[in-house]
């Protein structure tokens, strides 16, 4: 009897919650999403103002350089396609400033596991700087071993893929330097990086930076994995390439590589019907 009283007491709140609160909840219809923030301006006005935002100064030494470099990353990150020329010009102008380049490099390392998109921005800027200090930074970045443990999703380790994507961006910067030492690192990555993502980018970046000439094709062909030779002919949709030009390249690619033609898709089994009707009358 005592234990029955105990059980009743323990169940009482649950009964009350399920009998009382849900009944009350049913009386309230779902509400639209909400905020306490007051309505702002139209985006069409905001983007016009953002486009006029001046670029921050990218100079200085020591702590000032660090502060300016971080502000520049913020601005470049939010900049638009129309401002690409300005970003490129400014970062090239700072290439001899070791404090600036190192501050951006540090940000790439700091943010690689915190904010992937900011790390991508930082690595892109270092690559565009085309500097000796930047080269050392990028070389260090691609030498980081890819994690072999982590979150497994859809056949990949997310942390491994994330670092490989950043290393691919670092490879773009190394290839853009177009000097012997950096080229050696790019070719080595094309051959030996444990990630297909990095190898593929190394091949693409090396070829682009050497105008797809026969010599660079030969160099890569002699070192890359045999089953990745097709990456030498990979279709690249160049920025602002007219469709006629791309479509011609595609036709040539499919003719040269008939093995990439996929099989026809197959129909699935017929869908089960939602109902099979009433059972026969007894």
């Amino acid at each position, binding site marked *: 009897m005592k234990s029955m009283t105990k059980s009743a007491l323990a169940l009482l709140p649950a009964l009350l919650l399920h009998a009382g609160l849900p009944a009350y909840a049913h009386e309230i219809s779902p509400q639209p999403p909400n905020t306490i923030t007051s309505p702002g301006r139209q985006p069409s006005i905001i983007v016009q103002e953002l486009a006029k935002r001046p670029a921050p100064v990218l100079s200085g030494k020591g702590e000032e350089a660090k502060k300016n470099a971080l502000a520049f990353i913020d601005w470049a990150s939010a900049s638009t396609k129309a401002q690409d020329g300005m970003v490129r010009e400014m970062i090239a102008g700072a290439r001899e400033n070791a404090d600036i380049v190192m501050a951006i490099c540090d940000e790439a390392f700091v943010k690689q596991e915190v904010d992937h998109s900011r790390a991508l921005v930082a690595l892109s800027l270092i690559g565009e700087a085309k500097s000796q200090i930047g080269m050392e930074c990028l070389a260090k970045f691609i030498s980081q071993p890819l994690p072999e443990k982590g979150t497994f999703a859809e056949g990949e380790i997310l942390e491994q893929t994330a670092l490989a994507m950043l290393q691919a961006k670092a490879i*773009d910067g190394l290839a853009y330097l177009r000097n012997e030492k950096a080229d050696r690192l790019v070719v080595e990555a094309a051959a030996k990086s444990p990630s297909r993502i990095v190898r593929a980018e190394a091949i693409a970046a090396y070829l682009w930076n050497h105008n797809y000439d026969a010599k660079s094709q030969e160099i890569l062909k002699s070192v890359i994995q045999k089953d990745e030779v097709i990456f030498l002919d990979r279709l690249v949709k160049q920025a602002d390439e007219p469709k006629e030009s791309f479509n011609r390249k595609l036709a040539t690619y499919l003719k040269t590589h008939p093995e990439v033609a996929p099989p026809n898709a197959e129909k699935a089994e017929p869908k089960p019907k939602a109902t099979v009707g009433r059972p026969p009358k007894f």
Partner: protein
Amino acid sequence: MKPFRTFIIGVILAFSCNANMALAVCNQSSASAADSDLWNTHGCWQAFFLWSYKAYDQRQSDWNNRGWNDACNVNLEFPKHWNAAYLVTYGLQDNNSFSWHGTADYRALGEAAGSNFHSSLYHDAGDTAGLFGSFTPHIFGPNELTTYCPLYNATSANANPGSRAGDFMHEGWHGWLQKYNWNNGSCGGHRCGTPGACTAKDACDYFYFHGVGAYAFGALYQTDGTANRFHSPNQVQVEFLCDVADYPKSWVPNSVRLAARSDADARASARFINGPGYKCGNPRPW
């Protein structure tokens, strides 16, 4: 004193067993630079989310503890979801000479309404760390499109508006396959194992190469039933990401474009049996 203690235990039990009060486990403490940069272009446009929650058929019960009532807090999942929807709705140039497909295609794929692209669906969110998205057909009522933590946690490579919207396309295309009864493989709608040139596992597709301009804007759903005119989920995703990276509206921030390109290129080199797929844009660092 003892009955009181029993009563308190009962209160705790009652609340812990109530599914509606389950807390989300995705990290909602920060937003990626790409999310914040895009967010700053609209500054939390309330008219948009009051439209988009209906366009994407998002329900309060699914998004309650994910920012439904704090829809201007970009750290939370519901605001991040509509930030991606904003990119799909307004962010593309739709250039006939360059873009793979148009806003009409991508909107119809991502949004909830039944159309030539898929039967009606609704968007919810899940707390799994090991999935990007899923498409679950329902016999009764709309199908379910779920997006998971790796598309929201700022530390993840895919937690940016382009990749998140790219997943709307990917899962939406599973809806297309389901609507027209195509078999794209028995491992979650993909080919099993790591066949051909694909390096992912149980997530591989074929790439059905086509030229620029092969599909009029709005006609992505079309097929002639052969490999000449067909798409796979990963391919639709790559083409969308390339359009974001290369042919966005003039105001789309560079962080969004860089992240989209990085995702497209990684996916194009690793997810296709007859790969690699197209590489989008030049490999110039900036």
